[in-house]
């Protein structure tokens, strides 16, 4: 299985690449739009600030992802990578997301510690393909200050201050707010499910 991991200079890719390797994937790390456009499947990792996604626009990667997504190439956004699937985020209002999902990301309401760091539980919808084989109520590792709204594409909800999208799927466009590469066995199950999705 070949998987293309987008490098947009936002944080550290080592853990994601290591987890994909451990599942036997052939990993290509790139910032070349052409390699993204011709990918069999795409992972967009992301830790840090939503503003870092500006680079996706500038380098032409955004257009390449939109093109791949329109051809149903499996796509997985992680953390900021999930948030980028929406219209945008109040963290960086000047940057627009891919817009594949409606709504935008907001900072957690005051009242609890922000960032939301640690293992929190997932309410999983049975139709989720990413989370097939993962028990409802399982825990995943989160670290983020902004959260995506719950909508039609939501396949797992987590509650912190308010319910938010922990995982989304719309066709083959998918995203997770938590870090599957850091979520132990359930994270590896999710990545394996993603790698096994039929690629067009």
């Amino acid at each position, binding site marked *: 299985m070949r998987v293309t991991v987008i490098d947009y200079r*936002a*944080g*550290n890719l*080592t*853990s994601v690449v*290591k*987890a994909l390797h*451990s599942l036997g994937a052939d990993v290509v790390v790139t910032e070349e739009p052409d390699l993204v456009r011709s990918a069999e499947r795409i992972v967009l990792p992301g*830790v*840090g*600030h939503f503003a870092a996604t500006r680079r996706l626009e500038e380098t032409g990667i955004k257009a390449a992802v939109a093109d791949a997504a329109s051809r149903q190439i499996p796509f997985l956004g992680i953390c900021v990578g999930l948030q980028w699937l929406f219209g945008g985020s109040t963290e960086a209002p000047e940057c627009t997301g891919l817009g594949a999902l409606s709504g935008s990301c907001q900072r957690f309401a005051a009242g609890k*510690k*922000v*960032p*939301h*760091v*640690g*293992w*929190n*539980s997932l309410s999983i919808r049975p139709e989720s393909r990413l989370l097939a084989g993962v028990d409802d109520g399982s*825990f995943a*590792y989160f*670290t*983020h200050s902004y959260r995506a709204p719950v909508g039609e594409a939501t396949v797992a909800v987590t*509650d*912190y201050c308010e319910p938010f999208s922990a995982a989304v799927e719309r066709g083959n466009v998918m995203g997770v707010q938590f*870090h599957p*590469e*850091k*979520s*132990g*066995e359930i*994270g*590896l199950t999710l990545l394996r499910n993603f790698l096994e999705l039929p690629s067009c």
Partner: protein
Amino acid sequence: MLTKRIIACLDVRAGRVVKGVQFVDLIDAGDPAELAARHASSGADEIVLLDITATHEQRGTLLETVRRTAQRLFIPFTVGGGIRTADEAAAVFDAGADKISINSAALTRPGVVGEIGARFGAQAVVVAIDARRANSGDPVADAQVYIAGGRKPAGRCAIEWAREAESRGAGEILLTSMEADGTRAGFDCELTAAVSESVQIPVIASGGAGTAAHFTRVFREGKADAALAASIFHFGIADVRALKEDLQRDGIPVRLPC
């Protein structure tokens, strides 16, 4: 529900895990990669590796140890000890760490917190604070920061330094009570609560873990978001899963099954 994290800490010297009481009488406790894997499979929510030698000649050994330990670890992995610059942090991230912990370097040059955060995200920067209660009318509020393994006062108040670290972009605070460390007599809950209530970012309590009741207390009274322990796990007094089962019985939210 967000759970309270149990973090297993490996103190490493020259590539081996060691344990001592208050930084003396170090004894060999095993291979870091092997111990980290064992803690992860017994339910640790996170692994912290602290290099307690951190001399210049041994940096290479540390990176190799980090690489080997990170190889089969799929839970968050923090590395600390002797990291002074964003470039040194970058080498540790490249070797497989998810977060780095900085202590003295942040006190000497606080700007380094923001520099590492700007490159790797605030979530990747843990500021470690070694604190000791003050000899004053309000020993907790006036608790002092120490460096050099707790021997040298840094001339900073712990609460004020935690606030500054947060404003400079730290993602978490790792607070060690120097008085409690290694005693297995319980965490300093008052000190932990005072720091935890002064900042918005998560606080990891460290120093003094001995029994499950100590953890319950530091989560409930100490307002800790996570708690760290080393020696109680290494020598089989409790494994993480057994500890978590006790905490769950006490009504503390933990990641179980794990």
